[in-house]
């Protein structure tokens, strides 16, 4: 739960963008789509983990 989480996501984003371009240039559009989806799933799992952490903290804090 720190700033390097942001850097991780930025790195994944740039990596996915570069991979997408490379694979599209190499003519494999479907694999390009696969890598984009994989990057999306990884980032989404991280974001959802943090969101659930926030919701738990707020729930226990305000005993909602």
């Amino acid at each position, binding site marked *: 739960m720190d700033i390097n989480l942001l850097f991780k996501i930025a790195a994944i984003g740039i990596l996915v963008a570069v991979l997408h371009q490379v694979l599209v240039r190499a003519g494999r559009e479907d694999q390009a789509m696969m890598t984009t989806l994989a990057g999306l799933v990884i980032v*989404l799992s991280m974001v959802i983990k943090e969101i659930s952490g926030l919701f738990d903290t707020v729930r226990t*804090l*305000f*005993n909602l």
Partner: protein
Amino acid sequence: MEIIKITSIALIALIIIILLKQYKPEFAIYISILTGILIIFLVMDKFTGIIELIRSISNKSNINNQFIEILLKITGIALLSEFAVSICKDSGETAIASKIEIGTKVIVISMSIPIISSLLEIILKILP
């Protein structure tokens, strides 16, 4: 101080978002969500201190702390809904944001019914 941490994190995230926006627009939303969560966590321990203070004051003075609990619940609901509304507005979904606001208003009003009813009783007692 915390404020330096908060502003630096926000600026770093802003730079990352601008960098990522031209390649992958959807990653900008993830980073804005994460920055929001990070900043809320930064001030969370001060938040808990304030809430413990409110609870201890309400326990000491013999105000029945049922109303204080309801007020704290409403603050929590407002915090979460404001978090979601600002993210929806940021990504351009103002319709969803207004739906969240409507839902929050309904929940808050339904939670504050006991307070309103006890207020009315007090007023009726005062009236001759």
